């Protein structure tokens, strides 16, 4: 009807990614319900249009098109993997709509039609490595990842970063395993022997999804304790831990921009609402949920500022919008369509939660990594008059699109 504003929810509810994405669909429904309790947006009620792209990348593109063209949604909240985002990106640009992407990713992208509320590598990976280097005196590094673009890129950045800090090439080992890998015996014993070179060793894990559970089980069983070789992970949050007995894992780390254990009133409130909404006080919260929360609120605020849901106007008004995040501060949408957030390092606890051992001040998401040779000169600024996603500061030219 005319008196509602539709928004699209584009998360896989079946297939391999359902395990992660379904929760985000629930969060979106909750946020919409909450917003409607507050009277909606621009005096109209919000209506969430949920579809299931079924972990299938072409289907993501198809569903995005359907949401925008057929359902005429004002904005879409969705995607998890970078492949799905890459698949829908041209659709959003072609049909000039807006996507809020809530998951940490490898960076190297900035689209006028996407707001990236998850972490860029500098908002997660680099601070985590800093922590290990400074607080734990780590000198030797295992970069263990699933063989796909996010880990490969992140590890490329990390390797450059570590070497810039004086770590020798021989003290870095990079391993990749396939998706859904489940037999970690060899890899873990490889880590063990790499770690017995007399230098403090740590593992930086970009292992994706389901492969983490068997990985941590194997670590526990082979007796690798956090005190000996700590593992810091970028894809393991409260939801992933809910499937593991974490007692043998106490002390292993994760770097995120949010943990459920964050001690802030706004977080307590959020968790309460979440439990009430899901009617289950055991449901955990996690970082992508916070990113979805930030993205949604930023959109609401930008729409109210623009006074319309028109994409162009919202894109103009959203830069600079600042909304509370769940760690007690504010996150601001930057001109590069990434946001500011603090980086939190947490240690796994026996109860499956994280204990925050370090928190940085707000970090601006850096879409073009300073540690990759071809990106270091690029910046992105979607404000007029530059309005460019890949401006080369050396040549002073907008790299290709935008204009």
């Amino acid at each position, binding site marked *: 009807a005319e008196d509602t504003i539709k928004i699209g929810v584009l998360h896989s509810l079946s297939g391999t990614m359902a395990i992660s994405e379904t929760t985000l669909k629930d969060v979106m429904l909750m946020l919409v319900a909450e917003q409607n309790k507050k009277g909606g947006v621009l005096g109209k009620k919000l209506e969430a249009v949920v579809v299931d792209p*079924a972990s299938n990348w072409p289907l993501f593109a198809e569903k995005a098109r359907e949401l925008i*063209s057929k359902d005429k949604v004002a904005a879409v909240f969705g995607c998890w993997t970078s*492949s799905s985002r890459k698949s829908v990106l*041209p659709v959003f640009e072609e049909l000039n709509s807006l996507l809020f992407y809530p998951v940490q990713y490898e960076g190297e992208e900035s689209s006028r039609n996407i707001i990236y509320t998850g972490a860029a590598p500098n908002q997660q990976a680099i601070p985590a490595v800093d922590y290990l280097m400074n607080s734990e005196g780590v000198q030797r590094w295992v970069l263990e990842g699933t063989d796909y673009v996010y880990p*490969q890129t992140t590890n490329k950045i990390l390797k450059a970063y570590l070497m810039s800090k004086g770590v020798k090439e021989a003290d870095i080992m990079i391993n990749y395993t*396939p998706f859904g890998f489940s037999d970690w015996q060899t890899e873990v014993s490889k880590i063990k022997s790499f770690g017995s070179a007399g230098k403090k060793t740590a593992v930086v894990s970009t292992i994706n999804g389901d492969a983490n559970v068997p990985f941590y089980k194997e670590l526990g069983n082979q007796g690798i304790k956090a005190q000996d070789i700590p593992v810091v992970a970028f894809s393991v949050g409260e939801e992933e831990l809910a499937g593991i007995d974490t007692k043998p894992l106490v002390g292993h780390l994760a770097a995120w921009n949010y943990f459920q254990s964050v001690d802030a009133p706004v977080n307590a409130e959020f968790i309460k609402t979440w439990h009430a909404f899901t009617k289950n006080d055991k449901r955990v919260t996690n970082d992508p949920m916070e990113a979805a929360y930030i993205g949604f609120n930023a959109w609401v605020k930008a729409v109210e500022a623009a006074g319309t849901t028109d994409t162009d106007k919202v894109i103009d008004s959203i830069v600079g919008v600042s909304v509370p995040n769940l760690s007690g501060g504010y996150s601001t949408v930057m001109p590069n369509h990434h946001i500011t957030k603090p980086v939190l390092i947490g240690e796994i606890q026996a109860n499956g939660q994280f204990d925050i051992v370090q928190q940085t001040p707000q970090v601006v998401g850096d879409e073009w990594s300073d540690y990759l040779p*071809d990106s270091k000169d690029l910046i992105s600024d979607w404000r007029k008059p530059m309005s460019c996603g890949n401006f080369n500061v050396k040549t002073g*030219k907008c790299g*290709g699109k935008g204009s």
Partner: protein
Amino acid sequence: MITSFFLRALEGRIVAMVAVLLGFAVLVPMSNLLLGPDNPLHVPTYVMSLLGKYLCYALLALALDLVWGYCGILSLGHGAFFSLGGYAMGMYLMRQIGSRGVYGDPILPDFMVFLNWKQLPWFWYGFDMFWFAALMVLVVPGLLAFVFGWFAFRSRVNGVYLSIITQAMTYALLLAFFRNDMGFGGNNGLTDYKDILGFSVQSDGTRSVLFALSAIMLALCLILASAIVRSKFGKVLLGVRDAESRVRFLGFRVENIKLFTFVVSAMMAGIAGALFVPQVGIINPGEFAPANSIEVVIWTAVGGRSTLIGPIIGAVLVNGGKTIFTGVFPEFWLFALGGLFVLVTLFLPKGIVGTVAQALAKRRAAQAAETPTHLNGKPQAAE
């Protein structure tokens, strides 16, 4: 000789289907381009690209039916040929981006730039030319099918053993293409295309042409498949399916027969993939997933194996169902789809087309039976 070969293809059902397809090829783009959005007959662009996608899947299913329905080769790896065709087209589209990529490199695609590749790998050469890419759409899947089939058919790998090694093939390719080091963009694949032969891939005009091309290609491949099936060669194929060793003892080289069919089918799948990619805008290793290939088998079975038009109908119906179900009841659609598959097997054992054909045949038989027949006397209606 050639004409008679093709003329033979044009039997009732096939003609009807070809006519429908050609009608679609003309009418859908026309209504999209010429009728205003408010016209009730207007086909919106997204519906057109959706239909275009279905047609590509239909072509893939048709290709599978040729080897499975008529030659008894249950390929669980046809997605591989589809994907390779798609990648060949994707590589062309990537090279068309030129310096409009985010890093502005005139030669290297973006994913190579940020992974710090210094020069284009050799296998990317030539893909800046359309004719070359178009050739590769046929050659790459065809060659893979040829090499694979050459060994497998010569070694007389049969039945499930063949099925499983085709699955192993597509699975191995899946893993390989996931690797960034392969040089095909890793799991993100190839995407964000700009234009094809100078036309923007996103313009309605280009989409219309691509749609029409999909329909026409499908029609052509249907005629070709029908011509093959209805030739003596087609009868030999059925023989191979039902009693392979008998065919051998009649003096036919079973391995060549299979190889030819397999390669033709792989090329059709490649064409399907090539048409698919510019319409959906992405090709990535997910297309190699074994489950995708199994789904193709399912479409074929739902529509009716060994009927040629069955797979087309099956692919369109199942995918159409998916589109609708994933939008209308996103949380429960698997129940609907899974239930549909079970029901089809139980109640339409020969698939939709096969069952309808059977029912028609039965009615004809019943009419014929008005005059009582003797089994051991006059000819009987089939089954």
